[in-house]
């Protein structure tokens, strides 16, 4: 069954192909190719939404992306709910479900529309004024109620089940906008053979050819020519044609963001298709063919459903075959609305009258309208619209005052003229220029390698547009490197011409009225609001914008900017160019978070790094912790063990027999070259020249400011080769720091750095039985204490694979770190584990590693230091080469504040009650009875229960800490103050005998 307002035979859709959809629970029929807007209009539905602030009933203003009113929620399922979808852009599919927004209990009866009556409270700048007092009203009324009442759609409350893809693309010529101008430019560029991308936001190319019934190009109807041209372009290997693709942002050096809506128009997209595809395009040249947007007339109650742009009504008629009413009125200040009247009249729709604000316009369209018997009134204004949920009349008055006449209508089609779409040009940092003759801003000074053509450049008429666009496309290709031009320019056989129009408020909404004549429909800004803003002291158009919200948010002033500016200029008594245009912001139309996030969700949100030994730990039931991007085994609970029990057992086992620990994540850097030792001397505080090959040293790295930056054990493999280890988290920045100095400060040194973090899997075997576990598997290394003393390194083989075997300890026990090529890490671990089992060894995780090192007072950079700790503060003066004349940090370390008395020292703390474990980060005071706020003299950096010590242990940074040995200090906590004693940092085996035990 054909819908009531669908005109048989009109438009380009196949009217037999019907599609079911629902809006606010009611079922309707549409036609394949419809937008939600055209389908609703075909069913006579105009009322589709409530406005942002006043909850006024709203219908369709436009037929495109500039739509400020008809924002709906599209719901596919409980998770797929998209708010604020422009019904004029949403393509219909069978089963589409849409809902109106911002209304309660229903669209036709909205309680909050009382806001319209209370609107004096909500005028310009209301949130700066109305909601000031009383204070209690904030909590109880303003915040919950007003915020709930004002607003648009509701964000979905479930994770987005769709997926989004992304692509970087490069081309020679990027053409943005696929109307006549864009197509002509793309044809010219494509014919030269250069790489061309042509994008348009609509489903079909053609732009204004969708409605311009008077256009004929190359002997065909304009729209048909556009489709043929697109087919030609699509067939070319060097061209990518993207429909449903919005260029939302124009960034530096011709970098343009495009979002392609891949599946929002499909009934069953399937799981393979992304919902949207983000194209990040780098183009040598950009051609902007973004067209122009028709402006509405600013008069009282110009927002009633049924009042729309004249070109929109033409689009609905000429493309979709839909009449927007049965008896329409026209209100215009330029010629283009006449074409709407003519097209509608010819299609059998009643045209009540044309009201033209101009005094004595002439032209063929005026003659044609008259010839069709349409009443034409010059020098008159529509001063008000009648009706509430749908326009019912227009009241006409001579523009300089006089008798009123009310004409019944069911739609008003308006046109105040056309605004060139300079959004992308402006985003490219181009400067717009005001053309005083045509009263419009057009591209002025360009900031990037781009060019504007057609309506967005202020070029009128199809012939001139195609001439300009074709030439620009060819030139862009040439500038991008093309050398052959062989195409033929499309020939315009017939076209329509647009003329000027007016800016600002029409007479019925002039300076002396306070009627609601909307300038910005989406943000509910009226002509009165703009004037009020100026009266209240706003002088800059940027201030007027923020005070009134005109042209803000998702709308970006597509229909409102010029009117708002003109009203502000008039009120200020200044010419428009002196007031200036506000900056257009990206995105041009809203962009989903999904398309920005792209692939970076779930597993791809951030890389998860796992060691070669990870699968073993996982199989053992290890609990993992995140250390940067790495997953590290935290502890290995046995059946029935909680974390404490597991860690206590692991700690005791390592000291009693031995433990295996996966240390693969440690950063590793190989420093190679004849000047390797010289370089190490400069990057670390320690002396290196005299370190024998085969020996290791604990190194400290500072920043130039003298603070500890990283630490680690360094093994000298040969005179010219060091194996440097860094902290797990510090590996990338330490490498960058070393490269920086090597390349820019010490480039004379013959030395090179290579990251080997991932070349080696590292298995720490620590404990009195560690040598017994390793020795049976090792070939070619004498493991006796004499041949392999503490802090030495040897190369040999283990389990038949090459190893760098370090004798070193981060536990205070006899210990080794077995480095093997990563792919062998798992197998060597298995072999060591099997040996370890014979001795009762355990696997231990990072928590036990932390406890054991704290028992020995070994620091962890980044936990016990925080970027403001010097080697002296940390008690590591012994690691600073006293005879050295230079190293990074040598001067910073000597700054007055860094050598002053009273600096915080790293010390040990023992709680008076050994069972109490301090909280890391807890603050320390000297006198618990002092007045609040107390003077904090330090804080706890590390704190653990030590099963080996049978008590709690802690490290802390305390002012003058080393001079407070034995002193009692206090840690105030919510449940009471904890007494602690300042001690040395070594809690276990103070003499260090166990390193050889």
């Amino acid at each position, binding site marked *: 069954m054909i819908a009531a307002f669908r005109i048989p035979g009109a438009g380009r859709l196949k009217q037999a192909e019907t599609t079911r959809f629902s809006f606010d629970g009611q079922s309707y029929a549409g036609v394949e190719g419809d937008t939600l807007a055209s389908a609703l209009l075909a069913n006579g539905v105009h009322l589709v939404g409530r406005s942002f602030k006043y909850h006024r009933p709203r219908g369709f203003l436009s037929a495109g992306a500039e739509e400020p009113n008809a924002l709906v929620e599209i719901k596919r399922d409980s998770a797929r709910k998209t708010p604020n979808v422009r019904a004029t852009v949403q393509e219909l599919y069978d089963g589409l479900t849409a809902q109106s927004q911002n209304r309660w209990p229903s669209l036709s009866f909205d309680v909050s529309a009382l806001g319209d009556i209370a609107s004096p409270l909500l005028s310009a700048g209301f949130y700066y004024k109305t909601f000031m007092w009383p204070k209690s009203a904030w909590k109880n009324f303003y915040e919950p109620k007003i915020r709930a009442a004002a607003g648009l759609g509701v964000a979905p409350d479930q994770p987005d089940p769709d997926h989004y893809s992304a692509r*970087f693309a490069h081309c020679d010529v990027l053409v943005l906008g696929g109307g006549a101008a864009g197509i002509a430019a793309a044809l010219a560029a494509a014919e030269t053979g250069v790489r061309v991308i042509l994008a348009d936001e609509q489903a079909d190319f053609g732009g204004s050819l969708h409605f311009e019934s008077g256009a004929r190009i190359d002997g065909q109807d304009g729209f048909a020519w556009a489709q043929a041209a697109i087919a030609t372009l699509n067939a070319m290997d060097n061209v990518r044609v993207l429909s449903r693709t919005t260029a939302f942002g124009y960034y530096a050096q011709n970098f343009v963001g495009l979002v392609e809506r891949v599946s929002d128009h499909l009934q069953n997209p399937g799981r393979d298709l992304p919902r949207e595809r983000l194209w990040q395009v780098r183009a040598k040249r950009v051609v902007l063919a973004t067209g122009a947007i028709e402006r509405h007339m600013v008069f009282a109650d110009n927002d009633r459903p049924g009042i729309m742009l004249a070109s929109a009504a033409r689009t609905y008629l000429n493309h979709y075959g839909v009449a927007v009413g049965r008896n329409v009125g026209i209100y215009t200040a330029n010629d283009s609305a006449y074409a709407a009247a003519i097209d509608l009249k010819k299609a059998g729709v009643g045209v009540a009258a044309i009201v033209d604000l101009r005094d004595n316009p002439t032209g063929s369209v005026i003659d044609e309208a008259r010839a069709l018997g349409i009443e034409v009134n010059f020098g008159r204004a529509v001063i008000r619209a009648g009706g509430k949920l749908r326009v019912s009349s227009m009241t006409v008055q001579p523009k300089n005052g006089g008798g009123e006449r009310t004409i019944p209508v069911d739609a008003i089609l308006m046109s105040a003229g056309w605004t060139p779409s300079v959004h992308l040009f402006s985003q490219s940092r181009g400067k717009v220029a005001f053309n005083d003759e045509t009263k419009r801003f057009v591209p002025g000074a360009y900031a990037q390698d781009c060019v504007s053509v057609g309506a967005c450049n202020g070029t009128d008429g199809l012939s001139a547009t195609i001439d300009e666009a074709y030439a620009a496309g060819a030139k862009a290709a040439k500038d991008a490197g093309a050398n052959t031009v062989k195409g033929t320019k499309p020939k315009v056989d017939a076209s329509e011409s647009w003329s000027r129009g007016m800016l600002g408020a029409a007479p019925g909404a002039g300076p002396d009225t306070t009627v609601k004549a909307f300038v910005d429909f989406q943000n509910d800004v009226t002509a009165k609001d703009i004037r009020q803003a100026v009266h209240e002291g706003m002088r800059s158009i940027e201030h007027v914008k923020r005070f009134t919200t005109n042209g803000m948010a998702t709308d970006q002033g597509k229909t409102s900017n010029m009117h708002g500016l003109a009203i502000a200029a008039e009120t200020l008594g200044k010419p428009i160019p002196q007031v200036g245009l506000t900056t257009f912001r990206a995105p041009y139309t809203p962009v989903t978070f999904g398309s920005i996030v792209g692939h970076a969700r779930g597993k791809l949100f951030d890389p998860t790094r796992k060691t070669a030994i990870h699968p073993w730990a996982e199989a053992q039931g290890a609990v993992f912790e995140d250390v940067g991007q790495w997953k590290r085994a935290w502890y290995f609970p046995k059946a029935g063990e909680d974390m404490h029990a597991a860690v206590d057992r692991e700690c005791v086992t390592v000291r009693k027999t031995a433990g295996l620990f996966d240390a693969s994540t440690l950063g590793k850097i190989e420093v190679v070259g004849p000047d390797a030792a010289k370089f190490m001397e400069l990057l670390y505080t320690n002396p290196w020249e005299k370190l024998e090959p085969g020996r290791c040293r604990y190194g400290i790295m500072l920043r130039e400011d003298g603070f500890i930056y990283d630490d680690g054990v360094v093994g000298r493999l040969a005179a010219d080769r060091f194996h440097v280890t860094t902290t797990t988290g510090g590996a990338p920045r330490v490498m960058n720091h070393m490269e920086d100095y090597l390349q820019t400060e010490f480039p004379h040194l013959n030395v090179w750095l290579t990251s080997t973090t991932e070349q080696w899997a590292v298995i720490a075997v620590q404990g009195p039985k560690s040598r017994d576990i390793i020795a049976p598997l090792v070939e070619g290394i004498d493991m006796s204490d004499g041949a392999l003393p503490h802090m030495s390194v040897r190369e040999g083989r283990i389990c038949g694979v090459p190893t760098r075997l370090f004798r070193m300890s981060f536990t205070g026990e006899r210990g080794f770190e077995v480095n093997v090529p990563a792919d062998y890490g798992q197998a060597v671990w298995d072999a060591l584990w099997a040996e370890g089992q014979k001795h009762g060894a355990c696997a231990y995780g990072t928590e036990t590693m932390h406890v054991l090192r704290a028992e020995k007072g070994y620091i962890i950079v980044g936990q016990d230091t925080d970027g403001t700790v010097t080697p002296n503060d940390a008690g590591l003066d012994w690691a600073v080469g006293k005879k050295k004349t230079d190293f990074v940090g040598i001067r910073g370390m000597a700054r007055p504040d860094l050598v002053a008395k009273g600096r915080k020292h790293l010390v040990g703390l023992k709680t008076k009650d050994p069972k109490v474990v301090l909280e890391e980060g807890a603050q320390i005071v000297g006198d618990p009875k002092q007045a609040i706020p107390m003077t904090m003299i330090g804080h706890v950096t590390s704190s653990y229960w030590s099963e080996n010590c049978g008590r709690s242990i802690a490290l802390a940074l305390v002012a003058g800490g080393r001079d407070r040995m034995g002193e009692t200090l206090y840690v105030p906590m919510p449940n009471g103050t904890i007494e602690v004693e300042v001690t040395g940092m070594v809690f276990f085996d103070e003499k260090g005998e166990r390193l050889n035990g």
Partner: protein
Amino acid sequence: MAKAAAKKSAAAAPSVERRPALAGQELSATGVALAVLPPAERISLRAPYASVAALSKALGVTLPRKPKTSAAKAGRTALWLGPDEWLVIDEVGRDPLADCFEMTVLHSAVGISHRNVAISVTGPAAAATINSGCPQDLSLDAFPVGAASRTILGKVEIVLLRTATDAFRVECWRSFSDYVFTFLSEAAGDAAA
């Protein structure tokens, strides 16, 4: 140079199993196929230009001096990564570290065979797949066969080598290989568009 580190070892073959990351993983989608490549011998080679001729001779492949290029001979490929840096990959089991071992010219050779994992991306949609996360221009004009570069894929660093018109080798660090393979797999599903 650095003889201590690069001992030629005549020791027996490893007695334990080698377990490369992602071994054998494959994926195929419209227009593109992914495969984790078998282990290869690799070194990071650093040297001033004065040493290039001698090192090229020792390695049996001419170290390229032009940015973003590579050279290959008999299963061994040298990729220019920086003005004094090459990634040498040997796919036929000859250790380039051993070839540099006797060289006395100024250089640094560090074995990184286990540090990297290689994934092949092949098919007409191979470039589109990689361009899903790599911002470089991968057209044949800008990135011809043999072109090689360190670059970005999504959130990680890769080394990219074009081995044929429709084929790339993607090298990344071992622990990033899961991310890279997953990223490429997801991208492959949309690359034919």
